[in-house]
């Protein structure tokens, strides 16, 4: 771009220079031509002057000859011709005077010459007139010839004039020649210069063209290379795009599949939820039915056997009384089983409500609840310092009721029975323990301790339903904690409950199977 501009400027410069030289040459040629023209004019003028001079010279001679002829012949035509020539000569002289008006030297000669000639012409006229009149002239021939003979002076004057004029013509011719030569030289130089400059310009242009061609070549090559590269990259890009499309398709398909799976999952979850809801409803109906219908016959068993005993007791033999007692105790046991099962079912359905509870209050309430079981018993309660915990108050009271009830039951033979309640921290959990000095249990069977209907004592040793600890287990599990027990036969037992110290624990979480730790 910059280079092209420079080149254009250079070309313009050369062009302008050439035009200037040509203009100068043209100007010189024009001037030379106009000079030559004026010189030619001058030459013509000089020729005319010479012509007039010679006419003037011969005109006078003719007049003299006509006079002599008339004198001899008396030809009547001659005087008229004489007069005509005389007039012509006069005119000639006038013309010569006018022609030499610009040349002072010639002019002076003409001024000097004219009166001399006119004087002779007057004499000639007179002579002619006399001849025509028939007057005889004196025979003096000298008189006759004298005025007609051209004086030396006149002859000299004419000669001078002629000579001067010829010199002038020669001079002017030389000037014309010089002029022409100079013009030729100027034209030659201008031509040579122009040619030189044009050569230079052509060289420059050629070089430029070559340069441009080279650049163009380079550009074309570069373009070709770029084209090849571009083609390569385009192909590569095409592959990449194809890959991308494939990936997008794959992803879309995967998304579709995920959607499908989600939909399936959603449907299955809904189906399963519906099934679970159905099952829950059935379970609820079952426990409702148990609650209503199973108790009534038990009540009747107990009621009527008692009435029988009360009303007809004295009439019955001792064996009959014993069997009545058996019937009543079976009804009572069955009633307890129903109660405990309903309680366990209720715990399962119950949604845990977590709030900060002073454990001490729950322990006290539980103790009050089992007071009827402690009648006529020597029990020493040792309740340590208990913290506040995030637990469901109703469910946790049930935990303590069950544990205390067990402790009271299994310390039946101890005097005094010692029941210890306490709490310590371990691994971010609060561990609550209930220890007694009662019958304890065989640690070999500890894994059965928290299962439903599982008992480690015979009914005639310690009555029970085998549901209480299962209920405890269920409640603690719902609080994200675990329960275990330590014991030796006849060495007392200790039950541990761990619950998250804060409310961070996850309720209803399935923990490892709970067993006793010895």
């Amino acid at each position, binding site marked *: 771009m910059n280079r092209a501009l420079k080149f254009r400027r250079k070309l313009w410069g050369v062009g302008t220079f050439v035009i200037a030289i040509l203009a100068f040459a043209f100007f010189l040629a024009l001037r030379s031509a106009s000079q030559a023209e004026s010189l030619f004019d001058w030459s013509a003028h000089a020729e005319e002057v010479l012509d007039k001079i010679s006419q003037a010279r011969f005109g006078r001679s003719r007049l003299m000859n006509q006079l002599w002829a008339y004198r001899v012949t008396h030809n009547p035509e001659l005087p008229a011709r004489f007069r005509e020539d005389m007039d012509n000569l006069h005119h000639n002289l006038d013309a010569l005077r006018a022609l030499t008006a610009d040349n002072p030297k010639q002019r002076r000669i003409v001024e000097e010459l004219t009166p001399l000639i006119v004087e002779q012409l007057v004499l000639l006229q007179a002579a002619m007139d006399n001849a025509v009149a028939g007057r005889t002239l004196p025979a003096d021939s000298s008189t006759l010839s004298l005025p007609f003979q051209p004086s030396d002076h006149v002859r000299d004057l004419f000669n001078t004039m002629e000579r001067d004029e010829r010199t002038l013509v020669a001079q002017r011719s030389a000037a014309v020649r010089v002029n022409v030569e100079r013009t030729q030289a100027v034209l030659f130089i201008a031509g040579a210069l122009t040619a030189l400059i044009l050569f230079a310009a052509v060289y420059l242009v050629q070089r430029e063209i070559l340069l441009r061609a080279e650049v163009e070549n380079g550009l074309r090559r570069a373009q070709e290379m770029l084209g090849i590269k571009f083609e390569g990259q385009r192909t590569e890009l095409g592959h990449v795009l194809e890959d991308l499309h494939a990936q997008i398709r794959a992803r879309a398909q995967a998304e579709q599949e995920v959607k499908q799976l989600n939909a399936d999952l959603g449907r299955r979850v809904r189906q399963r939820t519906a099934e679970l809801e159905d099952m829950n409803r059935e379970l609820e109906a079952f426990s*409702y039915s148990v*609650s209503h219908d199973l*108790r*009534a016959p038990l*009540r*009747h068993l*107990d009621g*009527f056997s008692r*009435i029988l005993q009360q009303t007809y007791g004295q009439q019955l033999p001792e064996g009959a009384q014993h069997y009545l007692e058996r019937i009543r105790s079976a009804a009572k046991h069955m009633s307890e089983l129903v109660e405990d099962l*309903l309680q366990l079912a209720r715990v399962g359905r119950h949604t845990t409500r977590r709030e900060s509870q002073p454990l001490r209050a729950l322990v006290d309430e539980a103790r009050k609840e089992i007071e009827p079981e402690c009648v006529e018993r020597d029990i020493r309660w040792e309740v340590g310092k208990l913290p506040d915990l995030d637990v469901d108050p109703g469910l946790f009271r049930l935990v303590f009721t069950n544990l205390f009830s067990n402790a009271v039951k299994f310390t039946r033979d101890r005097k005094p029975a010692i029941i210890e309640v306490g709490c310590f921290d371990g691994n971010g959990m609060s561990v609550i323990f209930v220890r007694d000095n009662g019958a304890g249990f065989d640690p070999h069977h500890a894994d059965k301790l928290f299962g439903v209907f599982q008992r480690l004592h015979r009914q005639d040793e310690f009555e029970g339903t085998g549901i209480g600890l299962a209920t405890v287990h269920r409640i603690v599990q719902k609080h994200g904690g675990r329960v275990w027990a330590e014991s030796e036969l006849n060495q007392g037992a200790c039950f541990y409950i761990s619950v998250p110290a804060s409310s961070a624990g996850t309720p209803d979480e399935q923990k490892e199977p709970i067993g006793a730790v010895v």
Partner: protein
Amino acid sequence: MNSRNEDILLVEDDPADAELTLMAIGKERLTASIHVARDGAEALDFIFCRGSYAERKFERPPKLILLDLKLPKVSGHQVLRAIKSDPRTRSIPVVVLTSSDQDRDLVECYRSGTNSYIQKPVDLQKFQETVRNFGTYWLRVNQPPPMGAFLEPDSGAKP
């Protein structure tokens, strides 16, 4: 006293339960004036003096209704709602006497406006005590509203 206007209406479908209850009431000598309805429909006929009880008078309602929940035809809950939503019968004391200790029964009964809810104890002795307690209270301690106080058409506005 009109023999058709008893002190106690016992609504109970189970004859054994009915017998035990009657025996307990009799033993406490609370009243001899007891009518037993065997299902919810009969109970409603009795209370609203219609059907086979059309000759009964609203002016002499029972002093106490003992109501079981699980009843044939019309359930105890429906009977309770019918009694407590009618201004003429709303003031009759109803004691729900049932085997159930299910929360939803408790909630439902108290929402309908029962005066008391008692779970029948399995132990006869405890049952006897319970009957003595609520019988004494409702029949002897509690004072019912004046006769016919809620029989006017606009009596519903009164509490």
